[in-house]
């Protein structure tokens, strides 16, 4: 999933300052799973902003709405006829959601309430970990199911570096050394011999070769 965290309230207040009528727009997908932009967080942010406005004697109208997915046109069009009642939208979607809403309703400013973080997993309650770069050319097979690009601090494809100690990363001892995990996994499941040869340089054109990427699927088009 795409993970995100809410921006500091002061930064949000600074961005919405010029507007009187603001729609807080939550998203029921990834950002709900990571407790940053779901219905609950949207309600909490709305009441925090209302309270701040009241304390500062600001005459601001703050209302809420939630979409199941803010990054998909079919859901965004539910805002038709509603969005124009507001001076601005404060989106609790990820960066993709913010831009998708802004593109469909170009006359209304759409402001991000979240910092979009990474592609990751919910490891535990209240703990999300980055484990995918979205590089466009998955290499997990070769590395025992642990991505060295996303999870090694130096993106080593031929690790571990000299800073791996007791299975921890030198950059942050809270982080397991990805290469320790790769070696352990391949030792357990077989395939350690794959690490004997030098893994060739990554083809980054699959990630950023021609600027922003797109997927075109004619079989899916109407």
């Amino acid at each position, binding site marked *: 999933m795409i993970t995100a965290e809410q921006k500091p309230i002061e930064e949000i207040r600074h961005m919405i300052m010029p507007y009187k009528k603001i729609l807080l727009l939550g998203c029921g997908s990834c950002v709900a799973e990571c407790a940053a932009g779901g219905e609950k967080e949207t309600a909490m942010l709305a009441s925090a902003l209302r309270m701040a406005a009241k304390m500062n004697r600001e005459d601001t109208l703050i209302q809420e709405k939630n979409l199941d997915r803010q990054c998909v046109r079919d859901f965004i069009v539910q805002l038709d006829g509603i969005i124009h009642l507001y001076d601005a939208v404060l989106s609790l979607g990820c960066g993709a959601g913010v831009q998708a809403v802004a593109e469909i309703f170009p006359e209304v400013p759409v402001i991000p309430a979240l910092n979009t973080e990474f592609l990751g997993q919910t490891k535990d309650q209240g703990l999300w970990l980055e484990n995918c770069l979205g590089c466009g050319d998955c290499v997990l097979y070769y590395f025992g199911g642990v991505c060295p690009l996303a999870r090694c601090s*130096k993106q080593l494809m031929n690790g571990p570096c000299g800073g791996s*100690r007791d299975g921890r990363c*030198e950059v942050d001892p809270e982080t397991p050394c990805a290469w320790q995990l790769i070696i352990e996994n391949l030792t357990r499941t077989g395939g350690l011999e794959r690490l004997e040869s030098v893994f060739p340089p990554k083809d980054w054109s699959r990630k950023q070769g021609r600027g922003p990427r797109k997927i075109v699927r004619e079989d899916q088009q109407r």
Partner: protein
Amino acid sequence: MNQESRLKSILEKGIFAVTAECGPPRGADPDAVLKKAGMLREKADSVNVTDNQTAIVRMSSLAACAILKQAGVDPVLQMVVRDRNRIALQSDILGASSLGIRNVLCLSGDHQSFGNQPKALGVFDLDSMQFLQAVRAMRDSGLILGGEALTKPPRLFIGAAANPFADPMDFRVTRLAKKISAGAEFIQTQCIYNMDRFRKWLQLARNRGLTERVYILGGVTPLKSAAMARYMKDRVAGMDVPQTIIKRMEGVPKERQREEGIRICVETIAELRELAGVKGVHVMAIEWEEAVGEILDRAGLLPRPSLD
């Protein structure tokens, strides 16, 4: 201007090699490099120039190497993959060779979060292994990554680093083997304080025949104080300073700790010279270049032999 790598010639003649280290200044000050050149010129066969070590901005290693070269020192250009993508790395390899630099050490580099630019983007387009392979192909086949031919290949003696003290232990020697297959002709190791572990690593390397395929130079760093020993143990990534060394430094009064550090260093060099498979020593006297001459003199490695 000498057109060959002195380091390569020394190693090929079977002479126990000595390399030292020069950290470039934190400013545009060529005199600081020349001063260190003066201290190291007659003492070491070749001098490594670090590449923004610990991710702190300094004069570029390429520029400092060029200054050393003009001052009559055989420089070893350290290059890290942290700050440059494959276009810049390959370009600097060509530039280095064109300036008469004849040795390169291919490294990953300390992570940017450790230095004075923690907001920097870490590039890591290639890793050190892939970089080694690229440099070797440039030199031997005259080809850059992707297969295009160079008008003139670079002339470089190619090296890599190894840390015998990092984990997982068993894989350390596999990684050394990979670096050799990737193109490393010489290896400079992390600072050796834990001689037992170094011996184990070397034994594993010998068992795989690796010491016959690459020149290994053992790394040493003289300790200035007990505080430095503790700092290196606790705070420097990949460093293994056993308690016995710390106790020994703590066991002498402060004003004699530098002497004790030098003594430990000289003893380590003596042990390294006895080990089959170790072909030289790499003295990294961090901001203490003036100690290098004394250490090498007491280790019986001076004067350096003439190659003429």
